[in-house]
């Protein structure tokens, strides 16, 4: 199908984009990569009065080393994250997850700001934001504010942005860890995840010193599992640990049935992926020691 008519604005600054949104009285939509918005327009599931295209704004696409964190401009495309040596060395879980983000042509267009704002609960970038405890900077008519990833995702396809706010930058704190893994099952490579887990650990002599866990596809938002992190750190590093970890993770979620899979199946997948992920992360941490 074809989109219904709309006006098109291509502002040169974030301020001008916000003005255009305010002028639309809530009927406007922000266009970033368009890889989720264009299908919705083509199906006429959304009919904005005006599209405010951010692609003409200079200076919103960058990956910057800020010491203990990496800052990423909202218009940075998925393919830039996928191929970035800086991301590979400082945010290895993100680097590993990027090739799972949709397909080649979509990664060439899709942006991190758009992907986060779309807030799909089975998409990698929202999950990575939750995993890294990212800080999402947004700008609106009342100025600038920073939102923690935990608060940003409210429900499936729902973020906490005010109507005229735009995501401008995302900061990802670097984890001082030595082993990690990203596991995902989708029906077709690049499709939305049925279940996925990201794990990262720092290994001490007899116990883990720190752990980070996030999951997606098993709830209405991506989840960082803080309780499971604490339980994992308390476990002894023996042969049983992947099995016990899997039980801990699965106990944290109660996935619903939907068109793509039953909740039971998603839970089963998550359990299996948890074992795999922890084995990979621990083996890597051991090699690093």
């Amino acid at each position: 199908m074809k989109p219904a008519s709309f006006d098109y604005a291509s502002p040169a600054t974030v301020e001008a984009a916000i003005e255009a949104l305010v002028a639309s009285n809530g009927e406007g939509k922000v266009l970033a990569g368009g890889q989720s918005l264009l299908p919705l327009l083509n199906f006429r599931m959304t009919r904005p009065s005006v599209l405010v295209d951010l692609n003409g704004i200079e200076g919103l696409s960058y990956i910057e080393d800020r010491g203990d964190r990496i800052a990423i401009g909202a218009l940075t495309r998925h393919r830039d994250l996928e191929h970035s040596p800086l991301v590979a060395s400082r945010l290895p879980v993100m680097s590993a997850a990027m090739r799972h983000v949709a397909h080649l042509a979509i990664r060439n267009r899709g942006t991190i700001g758009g992907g986060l704002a779309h807030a799909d609960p089975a998409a990698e970038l929202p999950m990575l934001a939750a995993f890294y405890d990212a800080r999402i900077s947004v700008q609106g008519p009342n100025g600038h504010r920073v939102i923690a990833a935990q608060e940003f995702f409210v429900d499936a396809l729902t973020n906490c942005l005010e109507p005229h706010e735009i995501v401008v930058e995302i900061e990802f704190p670097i984890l001082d860890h030595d082993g990690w893994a990203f596991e995902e099952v989708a029906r077709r490579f690049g499709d939305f995840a049925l279940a996925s887990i990201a794990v990262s650990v720092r290994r001490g002599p007899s116990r883990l010193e720190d752990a980070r866990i996030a999951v997606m596809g098993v709830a209405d938002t991506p989840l960082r599992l803080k309780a499971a992190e604490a339980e994992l750190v308390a476990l002894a590093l023996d042969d049983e640990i992947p099995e016990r970890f899997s039980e801990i993770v699965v106990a944290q979620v109660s996935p619903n049935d939907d068109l793509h899979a039953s909740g039971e199946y998603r839970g089963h997948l998550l359990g299996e992926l948890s074992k795999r992920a922890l084995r990979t992360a621990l083996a890597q941490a051991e090699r690093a020691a």
Partner: protein
Amino acid sequence: MSDVSVTVNEARYDVSDVEPRMLLSDFLRDRLGLTGTHVGCEHGVCGACTVLVNGDSVRSCLMLAVQADGTAIVTVEGLGSPEELNVLQSQFREHHGLQCGFCTPGMLMTGEDMLRKYPLATDDQIREGLSGNLCRCTGYQNIVAAIRSAAAMRREKEE
């Protein structure tokens, strides 16, 4: 209504009166008459409408024509001619990588981008790269074989 100036297959086009809602796919087909770009699903699933925009593969049904203003586009018409197929096209013919041909323009444009961005040393990598393109008739074996062969030819050329 907007004006759109694009370079497509190295030819410059200045087109006026373009509605903002016109998809790049429809623009290429209806305004420029380049019907090699096929329109399948129109929501970014099938990959038939894939073209190169500034060197990167893009689904032309998920981009507006007005967004293409100032860009350089390559469509399947820009790859080779019936008399002189390019390497990837010749390998599609060699390996019977098409039957009805509907998905082929998208497969070729995706293949061109894959060959540039990934080593394609294994069939897994090739299949991963093709995961966003649907074919309803030959199946994928011969398409994978064609790209595998084009990747091998590229490696030989580099050595």
